[in-house]
């Protein structure tokens, strides 16, 4: 130590103390949650989603965290493909030592991460994937999913569809699992609700590559009485514009999954088709206290209005926080036990985590589209509680292969 001056020795000791002081509480207290999503592939949905969970994180920690321990979210880009997503999840688990995982958007990525969660025996709360399989055919005890799946959202639209008593239905869907399963569920459920209904034809354009003019003409050729669609994003916008121009929607009711979500509705602006039956999120009309509170906090923090993604991100992190609180820590088995049957509030209503399939009873807003001041809005909407539309105990039992 001869070469060391007094000053540098003091500095070293001081900086060590500071470092220790900074590291100590974080290491002893924070509970780490790993979050991963395709932020660059689906930014329109996921930027609001991220803002949602960031708001929740701030609120949770301001009100004391998890039993006095700070909650920390380590967020990762999953690269938009399952391979990279699994690697990101491995990194979160083994390098960041997170206690559980949450997130993902696309179905195949959600399934891949859910599969990893079962292998590594950690809890995974899937945020956005809508695939039915993640809680049913491919369900496992470590995976929980918050949003109502494709099947459930279709089931919410079917009563209105059956009421119309239309004979000939044409269907258009993006050609991948989400669209395929929406179509299959719709045919099954409407066929049950309205015996004798005819499905006169289908169009399945590749995701993001719809040739809208040709598809609209082909649908018109089928002379349907009504149309069921599960298009979204750019495909939906192209379809709506061509359909409006070519008079496809004249005197024909159209049902479109997800089209009322601000992410997909707002870009339509004055092209918004009148009277479509949709599921979505009429953020500026929901007057429940829970939602008012969320809305005010969100707008104060982000100077922007929430999208559905914001609700999903916000509620997913609250799910995680509530489960950790109930479990009294991050032990996987305790968290699983805590989540079974857990009841909680979300901005859009109370939900229950079903013990049978780890699916929450979060619902969706069902309503019709209209134009107001050159913008699309949802009118005559109601909140459809997921609990009323999820498959029954026996049906789930038959599907889950655990």
């Amino acid at each position, binding site marked *: 130590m001869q070469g060391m001056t007094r000053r540098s020795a003091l500095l070293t000791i001081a900086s060590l103390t500071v470092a220790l002081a900074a590291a100590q509480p974080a290491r002893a207290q924070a509970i780490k949650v790993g979050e991963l999503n395709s932020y*660059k592939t689906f*930014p*329109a949905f*996921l*930027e609001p989603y991220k803002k949602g969970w960031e708001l929740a994180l701030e609120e949770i920690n301001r009100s004391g965290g998890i039993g006095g321990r700070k909650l920390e979210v380590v967020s*990762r*880009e999953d690269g938009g*493909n*399952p*391979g*990279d997503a*699994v*690697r*990101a999840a*491995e*990194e979160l688990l*083994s*390098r960041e030592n997170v206690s559980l995982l949450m997130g993902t958007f696309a*179905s*195949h990525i959600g*399934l*891949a991460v859910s*599969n*990893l969660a079962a*292998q590594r025996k950690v809890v995974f709360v899937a945020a956005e994937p809508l695939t039915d*399989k993640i809680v049913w055919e*491919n369900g496992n005890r470590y995976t929980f999913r918050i949003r109502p799946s494709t099947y459930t959202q279709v089931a919410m639209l079917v009563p209105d569809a059956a009421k119309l008593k239309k004979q000939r239905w044409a269907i258009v869907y993006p*050609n*991948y*699992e989400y669209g*395929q399963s929406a179509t299959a569920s719709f045919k099954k459920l409407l066929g049950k609700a309205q015996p004798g209904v005819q499905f006169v034809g*289908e*169009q399945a*354009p*590749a995701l*993001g*590559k719809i*040739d809208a*003019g*040709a*598809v609209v*003409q*082909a649908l*018109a*050729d089928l002379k349907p009485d009504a149309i069921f669609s599960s298009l979204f*994003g*750019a495909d939906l*916008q*192209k379809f709506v*514009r*061509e359909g409006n*121009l*070519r*008079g496809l929607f004249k005197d024909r009711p159209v049902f479109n999954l997800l089209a009322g979500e601000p*992410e997909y509705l*707002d*870009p*339509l602006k*004055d*092209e918004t088709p009148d009277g479509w039956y949709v599921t979505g999120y009429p953020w500026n009309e929901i007057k429940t206290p829970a939602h008012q509170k969320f809305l005010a906090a969100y707008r104060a923090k982000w100077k922007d209005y929430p999208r559905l993604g914001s609700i999903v991100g916000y509620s997913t992190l609250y799910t995680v926080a509530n489960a950790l609180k109930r479990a009294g820590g991050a032990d996987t088995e305790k968290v699983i036990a805590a989540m079974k049957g857990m009841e909680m509030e979300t901005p859009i209503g109370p939900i229950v985590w079903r013990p049978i399939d780890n699916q929450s009873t979060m619902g969706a807003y069902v309503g019709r589209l209209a134009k107001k001041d050159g913008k699309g809005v949802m009118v005559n909407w109601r909140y459809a509680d997921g609990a009323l539309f999820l498959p029954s105990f026996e049906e789930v039992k038959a599907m889950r292969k655990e």
Partner: protein
Amino acid sequence: MTYSSILIQFLNGLASASSLFLVAAGLSLIFGVTRIVNFAHGSLYMLGMYVAVWLGERIGFWWSVPIAALAVGAFGALVESALLRRLYAAPELLQLLATFALVLVVKDFALWAWGPEDILGPRAPGFTGAVTIAGLQFPEYDLFLIGFGPLVLGALWLLLTRTRWGTLVRAATQDREMASALGVNQKWLFTGVFALGAFLAGLGGALQIPREPATLLIDLSVVSDAFVVVVVGGLGSIGGAFVAAFLIAEIKAFCIGLGLSQFTLVVEFVVMAVVLVIRPWGLFGRMPALARGAGAVEPPLVAPSPAALKALAALLAALALVPVVSGGYTLVLLTDILVFALFAVSLHFIMGPAGLHSFGHAAYFGLGAYGAGLLLLRAGAPMELALLLGPLAGGLGALVFGWFCVRLSGVYLAMLTLAFAQIAWSVVFQWDAFTGGSNGLVGIWPASWLASKAAYYYITLLTCAGGIALLWRMLYAPFGYALRAARDSPLRADAIGLDVRALQWAAFTLAGLAAGMAGALYAFSKGSISPESLSVPRSVDGLVMVLLGGIQTLTGPLWGAALFTWMQDAVARGIDYWRAVIGAVILVLVLAFPQGLTGFLRQRFAP
């Protein structure tokens, strides 16, 4: 279909054909003169869309179109003069790497500048409604497009045949060294052509605004369509591009009209494969003149020195020791790097020494992965057997596709490999009952004795190092020398009794088998497999790895794979605009080391 709906579908096809032609014409011009495979052409189109929709809100749609096109043209001129011009002497395809980096940068720029939401522009003023044709509604704007495409074709034809500049462009397309020798200023010609191509891409994008929203996902989908059109029409042939655009757009429209919409997933690639198998240079293309640039002659691949071999052995030993000192994520990342190293080396095996440029190598990677996954899940084979036999699917795929591919050369060959990869992808994507469709297969885990990270790392290290060593060894066996002879001078190779096609076919199959091995290892390391493992982006990743490391070197792909995988992992974690950062890093590397990393080191430290 009634007669009137047949007519409408025909018109729909014409309108789409016009849009397709605008992008494809620019791409074709650029390739014809500069030999650049411009991956960023779709990004230029996307820029045209965003600029037009943004300007349109301020100055009206019709003013925004020419201004957006000019702005994109100017951007093209800038890209050519500041970036690509520095790379003409570099090995072939390096410009492709540069334009790929541009794709990443432009995409993040658009996200930053215009936000994540799709922007649907207003209808075109004056063409807001529809007209009634044969009792059916048809948009007025589509009629405008139908007329506009041929107008552009005519204008280009006049420009190319009736002006001095056009004559020079045609001369350079036919033989650019000769044109240069006759005193044509290549620099200005290349910049001009690139700017014109970019202008056409921007124009094509801007004119789509009344039909579709500006979205961040449009770039790659447009560029792949444009490539198909250009190749089907024949590279460098503007008229060919027009005919091909018409053909493909009509086939698509009638697929939809006849209720075969699922088929649109792949129809253009099927058309391209059929055309290339029957006419190896496209419908109106000619056999390309051999390039005689500085980059064309590849130096012989010297055998690694004893010192280099020792260094590689030391590296292997070091890698074998990693699990002793470090566990967890380091092993996960290294497993990925090893898998991609084998993948990149197998691609380099055919791209470098065999001279067969493949844009669809992921097909064999994915087939190997699916082979292993399907054996495990559908046939109930034990994991070890699935890992061993799965790669055969990759080899088998390469055996079948390779037979067609080795009959072609250059970019046509590359595009045929791409077409086959897309066809394989679409089968996997669509065959829900067997391959799990778009979700893929889950639950593909290693057997219990390989389940720990360290054990799986060792089996990966063993397999990948063995595979790479075997591939490298083959390059210095008579087979490897014969391959290089066949690449450098097919005629002379043939004259001394080498069966060029059989050699290349064997190499292609071997590379497919090795890629399949990488794919099978990948599947078991992730526990699941999805169609993305066969998709174009995965193929492009492979290309980037090989080019980044240096295509003319032996160990380059190794370093390229390591650097690219590590970069994706490290940069994506901490930085919001990570794509732009990766793009920028690639651009810097390309400009600083046009021979690739290894090539640079070798030049620098050569004895």
